[in-house]
């Protein structure tokens, strides 16, 4: 049985009288441990799909079942709790809180879990070490480079040990070298820790790190290919 199952998944918005449908009856299955890259032009629905999988948006039609849980049936607060447990989100613009140190930023999602200070410390240190930025734990975001900020953001995404990592153009704002580091990191998380990763990207180079790439257009899949 697949880990993430989308059936006839639809998302509609009303804009005035017009109905906009970024996702239009999408069928998709993502097995556990997959590293899926989503590509497509602007407005193709890839970010909408990512947001639905991340549980920060809700479908208007069809169903989205993740590991047996139908997300459409969860209340707002239950969905929030589900996100904190199962999802690690990596944003294009990192979204670190500027007044908190790298350590404190990584601690943020852990505050929603019932952990002692000691346990939090162990988890944060492990996450920062895994992304190779433990020596910058006391730095504020403004004291870090873009690549370092994104690594802190990845540490924040994995610190709760979620099953799924969703990444919205994680290298969109990075130079080539930093992008490579970040993509290698995601690949390692996928291969060594078995994290299921769903990534939206514009950069064909980054798809080389994924196990497969899907193209979307007008809310539907257009082709499927397996990455090298």
């Amino acid at each position: 049985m697949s880990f993430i199952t989308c059936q006839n998944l639809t998302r509609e918005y009303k804009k005035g009288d017009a109905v906009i449908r970024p996702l239009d009856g999408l069928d998709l299955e993502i097995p556990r441990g997959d590293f899926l890259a989503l590509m497509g032009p602007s407005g193709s629905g890839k970010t909408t799909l990512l947001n639905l999988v991340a549980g920060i948006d809700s479908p208007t039609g069809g169903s989205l079942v993740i590991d047996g849980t139908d997300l459409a049936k969860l209340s707002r607060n239950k969905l929030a709790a589900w996100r904190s447990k199962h999802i690690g989100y990596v944003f294009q613009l990192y979204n670190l809180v500027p007044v908190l140190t790298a350590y404190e930023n990584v601690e943020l999602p852990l505050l929603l879990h019932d952990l002692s200070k000691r346990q939090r410390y162990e988890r944060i240190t492990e996450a920062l070490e895994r992304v190779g930025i433990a020596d910058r734990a006391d730095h504020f975001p403004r004291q870090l480079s873009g690549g370092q900020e994104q690594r802190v953001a990845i540490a924040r995404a994995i610190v709760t040990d979620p099953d799924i990592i969703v990444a919205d153009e994680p290298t969109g704002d990075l130079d080539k070298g930093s992008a490579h580091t970040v993509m290698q990191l995601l690949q390692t998380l996928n291969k060594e820790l078995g994290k299921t990763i769903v990534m939206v990207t514009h950069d064909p180079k980054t798809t080389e790190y994924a196990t497969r790439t899907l193209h979307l257009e007008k809310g539907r899949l257009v082709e499927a290919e397996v990455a090298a």
Partner: protein
Amino acid sequence: MQLTLNQRESMNENIMIIGTGSEEGVERSQIDAAVEGIASASVPGLKERAGVVYASAEIHAALPVRESRSSTKDLNAVMRGVRPIAFLVHSDVEILEGRAPRSGMDEIMVGQLAATRLGVPAERLAVGSKLHFDNRDWTISGRFAAPGTVMNAEIWMPLTDLQVATKRESTLSCVIVTLEDATFADVDVFAKSRLDLEITAIPERSYYASIASFYGPIRVMIIVTAVLIASGGVMGGLNTMYAAFAARVREVGMLQALGYTRSAIVINLTEESVFSAASGALIGTVFGILLLDGLAVRFSMGAFALTIDAPVVFTGFVGGLAVGLVGALPPAVRCLRLPIPEALKSV
């Protein structure tokens, strides 16, 4: 100001005898100089010590004074010409330094807030310094205090000297008597029976209370101004909150994406806002106490001291907290109404 015009306890027993028709301003009143003697003799039961009846003949006048002969700027002073008995009738008056002015020596004494009334530094009215009016220099022979009364901002001088200076040798502004066995009715009977003297008896307290009611519209204006300034502060506070929260929309979106619930975020934002408002209110209170408390303010009847007391501090602080609490909620709710994907896209 209200406290100053409400006057003190001793006024309970003092009755002013002033000219009929001048009930609204003793400075306008003119009564025959003989009223002092007639009242002392006609009203039984006035306070008396060692054969001296507590009846103070006084002239109240607003006079322009100058700092020196060469000065061109007129300062508006409230003068009271008195006899020594005035210091007994007005038991609130206490000589702080120096002595009472002597008649015919061009001497005056000044109240604690007289400098504020004149708009000059307090040192300028030190004992021994001079003021110029009626073509003469007058030496300050003493300073007195009458806290919380209009007298505190007055300049006192011998009655005869002020009669000469105001060219009203045969008239007085008022006679103020202190009751002992007599009641107000006794003085009123005297005043109403002696139609020839054209006088009215009025308790000193009521006189200043009616003056206070005359200042009612000014109080309303002051309150309206204060409310306007306060609402400006509230609007400013709200604006700041909106701006501060608008800049954090993406952060709020991120927190929701991490799994924080909306209510947790609202509580957190409100806490932050109340905390910063409380800090602001605390700083404001400290500044208020340091800069404004005891500051003397002029008004036409004299001067009064601003008081930053416990209720004022409490109101200010609670007001600050309320801005923090109420000011945080609308922008926080607005912030959270945005769907998470849109919040994350905001710049």
